[in-house]
């Protein structure tokens, strides 16, 4: 080809396989985050102090916090960009559908429903950020604090007391926010529905990502599918346990 052929990066991004690589790589980042996020949240079962110290650690390490936020934001944006692009290509590739719908031999509902589950998960991410990161869903639960008394952290509801103390004697009470949040049935129900769909998304997504990134040849294909089911199941069980534990009274203030 001549010099006018597009550059390497451009060719990669505008090819169908290149867009799939984008989906796959951003997928690895997102699944990795969701897994670590779930494991981190499991500390809620140890004690409110453990959980709040963990939240303090995350919020206090600014390069980590912003590095993660920016990486995730870019990953989500690219993931959606690639999904939209490939969906357009796929719809254009079959303008006339079969009069008698195809009878599938292998694929799953999860695989056929990726766009639907993806859109719900996106809506959930926005809701989740508004809820626990920005604090507009239940503002009354967001401004809760613990203060340092001697060497123990205790819940403090008086704003005057909190404001009078030096900053390093005050921390965000993420535990109470968590418990009060899930005591609301509607919030809990939305978490449950969203995580069921997230698990569906990942049960195909992880296997698909491993195929796209070149892993799933030969017997690895079965390994990839098992891994996909295991990761989706793990995330589902972990994440569903939180609202259920709060509603069942296992976790309380």
């Amino acid at each position, binding site marked *: *080809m001549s010099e006018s*052929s597009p550059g*390497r990066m451009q*060719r*990669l991004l505008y*090819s*169908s*396989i*290149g*867009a*799939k*690589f984008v989906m796959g790589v951003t997928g690895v980042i997102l699944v990795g985050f969701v897994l670590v996020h779930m494991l981190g949240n499991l500390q809620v079962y140890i004690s409110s102090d453990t959980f709040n110290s963990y939240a303090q650690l995350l919020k206090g390490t600014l390069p980590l916090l912003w590095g993660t936020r920016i990486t995730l934001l870019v990953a989500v944006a690219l993931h959606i960009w690639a999904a939209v692009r*490939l969906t357009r*290509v*796929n719809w*254009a*590739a*079959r*303008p*006339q*559908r*079969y*009069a*008698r*719908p*195809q*009878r*599938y*031999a*292998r*694929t799953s509902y999860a*695989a*056929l429903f*990726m766009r639907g589950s993806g859109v719900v998960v996106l809506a959930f991410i926005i809701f989740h950020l508004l809820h626990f990161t920005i604090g507009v869903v239940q503002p009354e639960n967001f401004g809760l604090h613990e203060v340092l008394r001697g060497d123990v952290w205790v819940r403090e509801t008086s704003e005057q007391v909190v404001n009078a103390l030096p900053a390093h004697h005050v921390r965000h009470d993420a535990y109470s926010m968590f418990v009060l949040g899930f005591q609301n049935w509607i919030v809990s129900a939305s978490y449950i529905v969203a995580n069921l769909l997230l698990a569906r998304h990942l049960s*195909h997504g992880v*296997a*698909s990502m491993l*195929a*796209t*990134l*070149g*892993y*799933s*040849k*030969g017997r690895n*294909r079965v390994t990839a599918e098992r891994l996909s089911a295991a990761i989706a199941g793990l995330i589902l069980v972990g994440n569903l346990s939180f609202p259920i534990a709060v509603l069942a009274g296992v976790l309380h203030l």
Partner: protein
Amino acid sequence: MSTHSASTMKLTLRIWRQKDRKSPGALQTYKLDAVSPDMSFLEMLDVLNDQLTRAGDDPISFDHDCREGICGSCAMMINGRAHGPRKATTVCQLHMRSFKDGDEVTIEPWRAEPFPVIKDLSVSRSSFDRIIAAGGFVSINTGSTVDANATLIGKRDADEAMDYASCIGCGACVAACPNAAAMLFTGAKVAHLVKLPQGEVERTGRVLNMVAQMDKEGFGSCTNHGECSEACPKEIPFDAIVLLNREYMRASVLGKQ
């Protein structure tokens, strides 16, 4: 084989009729009596066409050539399945014993933008030819035949190359794919040459050019449903797609043409 059921079948056929590329088509219903279970599917259509011709009607256009499962011409969707209900079987090798008396059988052409309908069940698969022309070849000087053992190829690579090379280009992978992607086809063509030393020289440019052509033709993109390899009459494994992804990744990093 001596236990042929003497009984014949009555079938209701719903077949896509379309005059030419431009005209809209529709399913049309035909009744066919006395279908022998020992007929091939194409012979059954021959019988119907014979009746249509005698009645002064336009016979149904469908592609066929070898009728022994090696040319890849016969191509139709039968009851929502590419090449019909039997695994690893082209339409020409499908027999009517796979159906029951009283069955309704819906027959449609492959549906994909790059496979325009020419007439009835015949579609143009020239897009596949253009993908091959973009890189599915090796440029070597021919001359007198080289000794068979001049270039040694490992048994496993030779077997794999043979498996991928068995693609007959029928288009069932595209027809069966929910996205109308041609990744299994293109993957088989790329993978078969990747496994052989003869394919090494043009390795990088081949995958880049063939994928570029595949995209240009308007095929969809793979979302790893795996319907293609299930529908493939030659059972080309899904591995072809994984290899295509690997090759594309490698070529994108190397970047040379």
